[in-house]
């Protein structure tokens, strides 16, 4: 990034900056040009990030038992193989179902819990909220292993009516993941400041309306990001769930992959599991996004300024008819 900026600041741009800078320059020094370097960098990162995934998905279609040597294309690990495919191996397809169950339940509970917590803590001043804010961060920072061990201990001794199983798994996962929305949304709240709420209150909105019509849309990217984090955190979790599982019926994909792969080689059936996980998640994201767009269709028409949708259609710079003016830098 700095390289590009450096060239931008070299001779022509320096001269340009020195002069009254209302005119746009189309020379190399144009600060508004598309940042090709940044984009290239981003693509490089994405390739580095995604190539192993592509390989993992690719080998789920491998005809042979190897996860490294390509032996032809086949659906055997998904449906074909009568003993070991995901469809036919009861352990594997019970795992798929359990993963869906856990991730949906946890996300649906943890995200509202965390968002409400963030909103409440942000406004409620005092020693109690400050302490619990701290505890929330602590819950994020605790190493997962010791957290899982303590959960196991608690569910088998103190709260033993909730014995090991799906309920314990969900409770543990929610507790572990609720810090995502709490921290991410709170960070965004801090950056937002109070201007929007106060403006809306000036216009006569009561607190519920402020939350629903102003804060939640403003927080949408943060909520979305934290939902993503929670969802993926659950899908991938193998520490807590392994400790709290009680039978094959409540063992999700992550634990199976961990158990078999940890030793080094479980075969392409596990790649198939992983690919299913990926496909499921993509589908859920798409459904969620489409749902969100449908639900907020009304509000978007009213043109809330900073309603930054994730598709980037409403750009943050869109002008706004309401007094919710976008530039009050001195107020934040």
């Amino acid at each position, binding site marked *: 990034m700095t390289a590009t900026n450096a060239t931008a600041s070299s001779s022509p741009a320096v001269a340009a900056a020195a002069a009254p800078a209302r005119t746009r320059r189309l020379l190399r020094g144009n600060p508004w040009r598309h940042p090709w370097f940044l984009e290239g960098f981003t693509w490089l990162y994405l390739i580095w990030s995604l190539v192993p995934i592509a390989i993992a998905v690719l080998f789920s279609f491998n005809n042979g038992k190897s996860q490294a040597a390509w032996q032809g294309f086949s659906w055997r690990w998904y449906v074909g193989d009568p003993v070991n495919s995901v469809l036919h191996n009861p352990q594997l397809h019970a795992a798929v179902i359990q993963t869906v169950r856990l991730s949906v339940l946890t996300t649906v509970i943890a995200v509202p819990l965390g968002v409400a917590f963030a909103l409440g803590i942000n406004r409620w001043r005092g020693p109690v909220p400050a302490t619990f804010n701290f505890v*929330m961060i602590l819950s994020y920072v605790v190493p997962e292993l010791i957290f899982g061990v303590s959960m196991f201990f608690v569910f088998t001794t103190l709260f033993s009516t909730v014995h090991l199983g799906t309920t314990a798994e969900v409770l543990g996962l929610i507790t572990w993941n*609720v810090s995502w929305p709490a921290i991410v949304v709170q960070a965004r709240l801090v950056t937002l400041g109070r201007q929007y709420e106060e403006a809306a209150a000036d216009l006569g909105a009561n*607190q519920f309306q402020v939350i629903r019509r102003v804060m939640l849309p403003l927080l949408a990217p943060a909520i979305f990001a934290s939902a993503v984090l929670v969802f993926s955190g659950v899908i991938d979790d193998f520490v807590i769930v392994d400790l709290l599982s009680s039978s094959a019926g409540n063992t999700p994909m992550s634990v199976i992959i961990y158990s078999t792969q940890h030793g080094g080689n479980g075969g392409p059936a596990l790649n198939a599991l992983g690919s299913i996980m990926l496909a499921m998640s993509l589908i859920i994201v798409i459904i969620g996004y489409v749902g969100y767009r449908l639900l907020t269709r009304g509000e978007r028409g009213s043109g809330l300024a900073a309603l930054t949708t994730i598709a980037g259609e409403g750009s943050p710079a869109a002008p706004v008819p309401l007094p919710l003016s976008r530039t009050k830098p001195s107020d934040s």
Partner: protein
Amino acid sequence: MRNRSGNKGKNAFWVALAAPGIIWLAILFIVPFYAVLSIAMGKLNQLFEAPVAVWNPASWSSSNVINVWRDLFGSASFAGPILLRTIVYVAVASLLCLLIGYPAAYFVARFAGRRKGLFLVLLIAPFWISYMMRMLAWIDLLSTGGYVNKALGWLGISPVNWLGGSSTTVILGLVYGYIPYLIMVLYAGLDRIEPALIEAGRDLGLGRTRTFVHVTLPLSRQAILTGLLITVLPMLGDYYTNQMLSGAASTSMIGNLIQGQLGTPGLEGQGAVLSLMLLLVLLIPMAYYVIATNREAAR
């Protein structure tokens, strides 16, 4: 900043919002946390070599603490190098995460335009295929006959033993594992920066770099802080990366030591103590985060 309509009724609203979370944490986090403390300060059931939790602080036993202290600082201590190594790995890995992640997040947040959705999906994809599968794919790529070495061969470089206990591999593995989180958090924060502010900077005659340094960077401070919190602190407790990508004693991190103790009958108490000590150390950056966030909120 005073609340415009500052009466008790309004305050109750915020309390009610925060209450479910508070109660949840109290029951399902604070209580288990106390359980960890009771195990750390507890005794040992010799029959099963299992730890016995001691709930009453008056009967707490310090034997586990003494043992861990001895491991760390005593005459036969061995844990010092591990701590140092962990700190170095995490520092380097976090820096790399930031150097790689910030530009990518910045680009997507500000310049992606209509393709923002596409980029977001691509950025999110790593989350949804198991972390293990990604690591295993890397192990495959990094093995002696794997594609990385093959690619190096095309460039005329002789194959490297990536998986033979190399700290470079572990650090890169940490970066790979944690960077998606950093990018997501940075994106959520950077997305909010008003382009008008940047325009203002340009209008005032700042070039690209100086706009970035004087306008964008300060505005993204909170996002960077949160991103680092989310990345650095868990990284310090990480054990899996080293286990998968190296396995050598010379690259083991403090997380491996804790995990070893927790998995050993009879040593769980010490594992609990070490985890608590790690947490104590982490309290400092955590406190900084909270203070910085509050300061930011009060502005």
